[in-house]
């Protein structure tokens, strides 16, 4: 078990991992988005949210997303399509942005709670975790945001969000695949923030 990815969230070790996943979101921001008419883009950055949850666990995933959003709020153009600044937090998509924070936590919590340690089991855990966190939770916040900020009705917002589902399911699969790779390459990684066995 040793050091691995474990340790208190305040240590430099966590700090480094947290910064890495914030950076991962920034790199994903370079991959262009596909714009949809109601003002919320399809972006690969949600994959970063899922990965943060599965690989870091709830606490540190939260910190990673918070760090990323702080950098965005500072005006760094890190959201897909090179956006940044405070304006993005009052746009139709801002519900989703806040949802990322809690989606990552949820994904981390599910990843943490599920049993199984073989690469295959970990990939399955990640599949479920990324669905719960990256889809269910993120959409819940996103739909609320659309209702409040884009003045859509709940059912309109719900239907509009369905446009993201195929892409997001693909991301869940990718996330599971990457977790599988990591499980083989870094066997003592503490998935979901657990102390590695």
């Amino acid at each position, binding site marked *: *078990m*040793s*050091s691995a990815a474990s340790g208190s969230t305040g240590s430099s070790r966590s700090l480094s991992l947290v910064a890495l996943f914030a950076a991962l979101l920034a790199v994903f921001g370079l991959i262009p988005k596909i714009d949809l008419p109601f003002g919320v883009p399809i972006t690969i950055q949600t994959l970063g949210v899922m990965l943060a949850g599965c690989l870091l666990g709830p606490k540190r995933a939260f910190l990673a997303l918070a760090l990323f959003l702080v950098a965005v709020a500072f005006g760094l153009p890190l959201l897909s399509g090179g956006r940044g600044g405070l304006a993005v937090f009052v746009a139709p998509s801002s519900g989703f942005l806040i949802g990322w924070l809690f989606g990552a936590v949820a994904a981390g919590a599910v990843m943490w709670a599920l049993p199984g340690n073989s690469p295959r089991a970990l990939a399955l855990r990640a599949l479920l975790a990324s669905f719960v966190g990256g889809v269910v939770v993120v959409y819940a916040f996103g739909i609320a945001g659309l209702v409040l900020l884009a003045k859509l009705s709940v059912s309109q917002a719900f239907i509009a969000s369905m446009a993201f589902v195929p892409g997001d399911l693909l991301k869940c699969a990718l996330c599971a695949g990457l977790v599988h790779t990591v499980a083989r390459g870094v*066997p*003592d990684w503490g998935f979901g923030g657990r102390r590695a066995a």
Partner: protein
Amino acid sequence: MRGEPGTFLVDSASAPHVQLDQVTLRRGITTVFQGLSLTLAEPRIGLIGDNGAGKSSLFRLICGLETADAGSVAVCGHDVRKDRAKLPALVGLMFQNPDDQIIFPTVVEELAFSLSPSGISRKEARARASAFLAARGLTAWADRAVEGLSQGQRQHVCLLALLIAAPRILLLDEPFASLDLPGQASLAADIDASAQQVIVSTHVLAHVRHFDRVVWLDRGAVKGDGPGAEVCAAYEADVAARPRRMNSVPAEMAS
């Protein structure tokens, strides 16, 4: 240890030393140490042994990077798990691979960072780092990108970053591995002259043969421990007596 009256006074007066007590360490699928006890108090100690014997793991334990699964590790009387914040002043590690140690993009920043636990301002730290380099005739290195240095030069930077921090115990993990002859000679001379405790792991026995104490690790256990000349000779004899290793007989090469 913490909070006992007088601990500090006794502590800073006492010679630097490291104490491992019944340490068990597992890393991944390997049990690196199993109930290892060791007191390292001599001013110069060499650490030798095969690849994978546990030399780097021992260093990582001592500076608190690995947590023992059982047993305890204390540096100058401070438990490494509890007194983390005090460790950098007590013990410093020169990593085996320079890329693992260096964080900053330029040499002077990297050295200045070593001074940050001492609490001085960034500007002050940078000034001291520049002066430190200048005193070594390395002013030209200050603004160089670490990326633009050769591996041996990077290893040299790692050494300097450790020296400027000036901890009481220096752990050098294969410090000679990429240094050129002049660099090796001057490091060896510096080790001999240092007032700090120095523990050196190396595969080049010539560098530790004259030490008063050398510890030979074999698959995580102490197989030899005593005066450098004796232990090195015993290790060499052991190596010579082994059947020629299969693992690197390259069929292609020999074909």
